[in-house]
Structures are given as C-alpha cells and as structure tokens.
C-alpha cells in the first residue's frame, strides 16, 4: 500500500518540481517568472486540446504516450520514497528492474520521435543514444558501488548501505554522489547538456522527441518527463542522502519522511536552477567527454569499495 502512496506523492509533486525550477531560474535571471503551478496548468490545457498527428505517424505515436507513462510509473513503484521497508516495493525495489523500466521508456520515446517523421527527432534520437551509452553504465555502477558493502542490489538494501557509507566510507559516498548528480543533469535534459527552454530545434536532445506531439499525448509525455526527473532525484537521495526515510511504519515516522523528502527535493531542484542560471550549453561533442569522466568516477567509487 505504501508503494502506491509513494507513487501518488511523486505524481503530485513532479509538475511542481519542474515549475519550481523554472520559477527559481527566472528569479536568478532577474525576471518575475511564471508561477510554479504553470506545469499543472499546462497539463490541464493540453489535456483539453485535440491531438494532431503527423501523416507519417503510425500506431507507435498513439501507443507510446501511454506506454512511456506506464513504464515510468512502474519505475516509480520500485523506489523507496518514504518507507525503507523492502516488502511492498515493486520487484522488491531491484535496481535492475528500475533501470530496465526506464531504459525501455527511453526506447519507446526514441521510437516515438522516429515515428513522427521529423528530422529533428532523428537527430535528437542519435544524440540521446550516444549519451545513454555512457549514462546507463554510470548510474548502474554508482548504485552498485553504494550497495556493494551490504551486497545489496535493491533499493532498501542500498538505503541502509548508503546510511552506513556516509559515516564509514565517505569516499564511496562522495564519488557516487558526483557521478549520479552529474548524470542526472544529462538524463533530465538540463544545462549545460541540453537546454530545456530552447526554441532552437537544431540543438535539442530530449525535447526533440516531443516536438510533433500535441494535445493529451503531449500532456502524458510531458508528465512522464517530469515524473522521470523526480525519480532521478529520488535515486540520488536513496544512494547518497538516505536520511529521514521511515524504517518502522509509525505515523510520526511518515511525517518526518515526507518532510525530509520535500526538503531534499527543494535543495536538489534549487541546485539545478542555479546550475542552469550560471552555465552555458556545451558543444554536443563535449558531453561524451563529460559523461566519460562521470563513468570514471563511478568506477572509482566501485574501486573505493574494494580498497577501503
């Protein structure tokens, strides 16, 4: 049951997180900025609009918006947000299941982009695949590095291992933190890798898949992108900041868990907004170099486990 509540909490928060980042970014740039509620309002607006599909579109374009959201919701059910107890999580919170669900959702989005027949989506797909070659192993190795001392390949175990790491093995904790946080910027389409509010079709990575989408399909796709972003934050919290998560199942414990989760999300999204405020976008070919570095950090975290 707790798993369902956790997913609901993530669903409610995801658009706010996106809105908050946009609002804070605007404040940093000296603008008043849109209300943090805007993503919710956008979703409401888009749900009410008709769907326009490209002539080249097949059933893929009609299926993927639902499929992608379903896969991301499945991934959300693998994550410990409030409760660290292993029981009710989907697949006991296995990181293999979690990462495959997200990888499959990525694949479905790539197909959606190609299905629209737009040249931009093809370019974006090429870039995204290039990046994901380095993104997926980095996340994977970082999570394993955190869980390895406790022989954990599922999130509840990783949580406990992470709690121990921060005190006993700070090298692993900090290397994994940098690697995961670095990769999250790529996965959530943030500067300096991708520009989330660009109108420049030619430089897009993630946004380019959604260019041809409209109406409720666009709403579903944007919502799953927002949800995915919050999932990655949650992964970071689980692996590096496991504080405040409820280990028993008392009411007070949940209150603390919710509060600490909110505070952590606030910090993470503020950091993203600050990074977006001060960085320019890298050349496309500078990104693999950066990702290789992150991968090296993840491997170093793994080695630190073995040595220390």
């Amino acid at each position, binding site marked *: 049951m707790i798993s369902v509540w956790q997913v609901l909490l993530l669903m409610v928060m995801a658009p706010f997180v996106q809105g908050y980042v946009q609002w804070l970014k605007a404040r940093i*740039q000296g603008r008043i900025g849109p209300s943090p509620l805007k993503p919710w309002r956008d979703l409401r607006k888009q749900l009410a609009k008709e769907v326009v599909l490209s002539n080249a579109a097949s059933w893929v374009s009609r299926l993927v918006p639902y499929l992608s959201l379903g896969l991301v919701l499945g991934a959300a059910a693998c994550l410990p947000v409030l409760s660290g107890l292993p029981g009710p999580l989907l697949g006991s919170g296995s990181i293999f299941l979690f990462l495959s669900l997200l990888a499959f959702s990525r694949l479905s989005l790539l197909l959606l982009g190609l299905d629209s027949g737009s040249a931009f989506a093809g370019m974006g797909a090429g870039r995204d695949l290039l990046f994901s070659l380095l993104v997926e192993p980095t996340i994977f190795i970082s999570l394993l590095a955190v869980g390895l001392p406790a022989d954990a390949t599922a999130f509840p175990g990783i949580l406990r291992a992470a709690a121990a790491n921060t005190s006993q093995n700070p090298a692993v904790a900090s290397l994994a933190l940098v690697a995961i946080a670095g990769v999250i910027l790529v996965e959530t389409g943030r500067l300096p890798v991708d520009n989330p509010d660009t109108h420049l079709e030619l430089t897009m990575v993630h946004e380019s898949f959604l260019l041809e989408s409209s109406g409720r399909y666009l709403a579903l796709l944007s919502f799953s992108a927002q949800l995915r972003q919050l999932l990655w934050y949650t992964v970071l919290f689980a692996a590096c900041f496991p504080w405040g998560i409820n280990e028993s199942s008392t009411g007070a414990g949940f209150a603390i868990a919710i509060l600490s989760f909110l505070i952590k999300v606030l910090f993470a999204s503020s950091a993203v907004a600050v990074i977006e405020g001060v*960085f*320019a*976008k890298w050349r*496309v*070919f500078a990104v693999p170099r950066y990702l290789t570095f992150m991968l090296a950090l993840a491997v170093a975290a793994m080695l630190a486990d073995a040595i220390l």
Partner: protein
Amino acid sequence: MTLMTCGPQAISTLCQSYASQGFRLQTMMATDERRIHGHYVLRYAFVHDATGHSVVLETAVPHDSPHYTAVTPALPAANWYEREALDLLGLFPDGHPEPFPLMLHGDLAANANPYPLRKEVDRAVSLPSVSRSLSVEAVPDGEFEVPVGPIHAGVIEPGHFRFHVRGEDVQSLDVTLFYTHRGLEKGAEGLTFAEGLAVAEQTCGVCSASHGAAFAQAVEAICDAHIPERAMWIRLLVLELERLYNHIGDVGNICAGIGFSFGVMQAGILKEKLQRHNARLTGHRFLRNMMAIGGVARDVPSDLAAHTGHVVQETMSAFSGLVNVLLSNEIVCDRFRQTGILALDVVRQYGVVGPAARASGYLADARLTQPSGAYSDKEVQTLLHVPTFPDGDVMARVLQRIEESSVSATLIGLAVAKLRSLPKADGDSSLVTPMVTPAPYEWALGVTESPRGENVHFVMTGPNGTIDRLRIRSASYANWPAVAKAVPGNIIADFPLINKSFELCYACCDR
C-alpha cells in the same frame, strides 16, 4: 562618382574589370525606363573600400528582348540582384549559374509572373496565389536532409533552411527567404519623398534610423541640398544610438544561441534601458520618425543631449562588466571560437558588409569610405577607429560588436558635446533645409552604415516631386548568401549560434 555606360553584352566584362581592381559590388538597380527611354536599365554600383572611390556601370536592356550577359559567373556577389531583376522585371541574365527564382516561390515564378515591378502592373493588383510542394531530393547514402522552417518553434521571421548533414556535420546549406515580401519598393512609386521616407523607415524594425537616413541622403543628393549643422549632429547621434542598442542586444542574442541566460538577460536589460531612452529622446523606441528630408524632424535640446551622454556612459560601464563575465567563461569561449568561420575569400567574392566583413578582416564601413553629414567631420574621422578581427569566427563577430560599441559611445559623446555647444534650435530652419522640387528622372544613391552593415538606397525621381523607383539594398540582403557559406564544416547544433552571430534581418529582404 564615375558613371560609365556599355551595351548589355559587355556589362559582364566591364563589371569584372572593376571587381578585379578591388571594387566591391554595392548594389544593382534594375529599372523600367521604357516610358522615358524605351528600354530597361541596369545599374551596377561599385565602391572601392580602400579609397572610397565609387563607380556606377549602366547598361540598357532592350524592351523587346530583355536579355543581358550575367555578371554572376565572374562575380558571385551579383547572384541575388540578377535573380531579383528576373523575378520582378523579367530581365534575363544569360549564362547565370542559378537562373531559378529567388523572391517568388512555387508555380508563380514558372507560369503566371506578371513581373510586378514593370510600370504597367498596377500595385493594387495582388499577385496570383502560390502553392509549393516540399519534395525531398535523393541524397547520397549516409547523408540526411534536414528541412527547418519556414515556420519555426520560436517567434521569429520566416526562412526555410535545408541542411545536408552527415551525422552531425553539415555538408551544405540552402536558404530560402522572401516569404513575406511586402512590395515596399512598388508601393513607394508615386509617393512623395516624405511618404517615401516613412516607407524606407519601415524596411526594418531595428535599422529604421539608418534606412531613413539613407533614403533622405539619396533625395538630398538629387536636390543637391546640404542639411543644417545641428541636424547633421542629431543624425549622427541617432544613428550611433541605433548601432549601440543593436550591438549590445546582439551580443545578448548570441548568448541565447548557447543557452547562456545570464548574458541574454543582462544584455536585455541594457538594451531595454537604451530603448527607453530612445523613446524619451525621439518619441520612438526604435528611433523612427526622427529623420526628415533635408534634416531632422525633432530637435535634441542640450539637457536631453547631456542626459543621453550619461545614459550611454552608464550603459557602457555595465556592458564592460558583462563582457568581462562573458569572455572569462570557459564554455562561452569554447563555443564561440573556431565556430562558423567566414573566410576572407568569401567576404570578397560575395561583397559581405558590416561587422561580419570586418570580423573576417575586411575593412568596409560606409562611415569611412562614403561619409556623409557629420561623419565627414574631421574630429569624427579621427575618433572613428573601426576595428577589424582576422579570425572570422563567432568570437570575432562578438568582439567586433563589443569594440564597435565603444567607438559608437565615443561618437555619441562627441555629438552630445557638439549639440550642447551649437546655438539652440531656432525654429525649423536650423533643423531642416527647405527642398526644391527636383527634375524628374534624376537619381542618386544614399549610403549609411547600419548596425548590420551598409544600407544603400537608390532613389529615382518622378514628375512633381514623387518617387519613380526606390531600390533598397540593406546589409542583410548583402550578407545572407554568406551565412550559407559559413555553416558547412560545422555541426548542425551550432547553426543557431552561427546564424545569431550574423544577426541578419528577414524583413530587410522582404522589403
């Protein structure tokens, strides 16, 4: 200015001989003079940028067989002009390497072109509608064609770009413009000069003052009129204010090409401050309605002039802070350097003008070569240290604008001092020289240096002080073909940045 005449078959050779002596093709005017002389006339205007010497080569094209030898094979800079003369007047350039329509799209060009600039075509008659199919030609294995526009994801003017890419690398780029052509030149025929000035100012949103001044200068040259000294300095002040707000705004826009929001916003704030001051000074944020035939429409009193000096000084010190941040940012410098290199050869071949030419090491500036009004003043010429940069990349074009901004600020300072020391405006006579009605079918060129480069207005008078033909050659018209040459060899994701570094105007072509 030298004027030479030759036959329609000899024009190519003659143009080539001037081009080989280092003359740059400034503009080409095609006019329908059948009612006066019984034939069409082509005028190729050249200028020598080192000496300022200018020459106009004129040729008559017979009305019954409107053919002439194309200049383009020898001088690529003539490409667009000759295709435009074909589209709008039906003059056929024999031997042109790309004899397809430039301004008219789709079926209209093939079948039903009434040649709208011919005098017998009524300007009230609208052109037949145009349909256009976007077919994709076969491309070699491993290459893709990426069509972009004419409707873009952002609120920008229409232009259709076709990239041939191999992976991320751009092999070639085709640009199709002229989607929203307004027929301003046809519309100006028969108007009075004052009405024509309003049309000229509407050519472009952000270069209104320099377009207006170029038109006014052409008319004043025909009438042989000299504008009052106070008006001269006010014109210089307004033209340099236009350059300043454009250059600062452009530096910010270039930052938008790499998602550097700090630069975009800070430059945006400075540009806004300048534009608010523009409104206070001239009544218009884009400096419109300030020029008048024979002078200026509005005085700049000394207190307002002094305030302008303060605003510009404040802006420049804030701008230098922004420049420091920009040029010390590693990512920004990495993105700007070696991106979108415009070779000096291309500049020479295509007659590129303005900051784009100067950032490739070619010094062309109408303020130096063909100065008019206060620009011919000795003090102005000594202060006018127009910089050049040899690299021709995005960085060079950014640095070019930064350096030119401070030159403009210096000139504004001088104009402010002059306006404060000159006697106060005493009625209209100290602002506008009265004009005599010029004889019909006289023509002249008016040249100004706009923020994007040289604007050339050709005005031919009609009967009773009206316009018979107006030909506007804006800097963007001269530079667009060069953009397509600067892109191949770069990755497609850098195109927005390269395009923004030229910051060309679509409306300037859709005149």
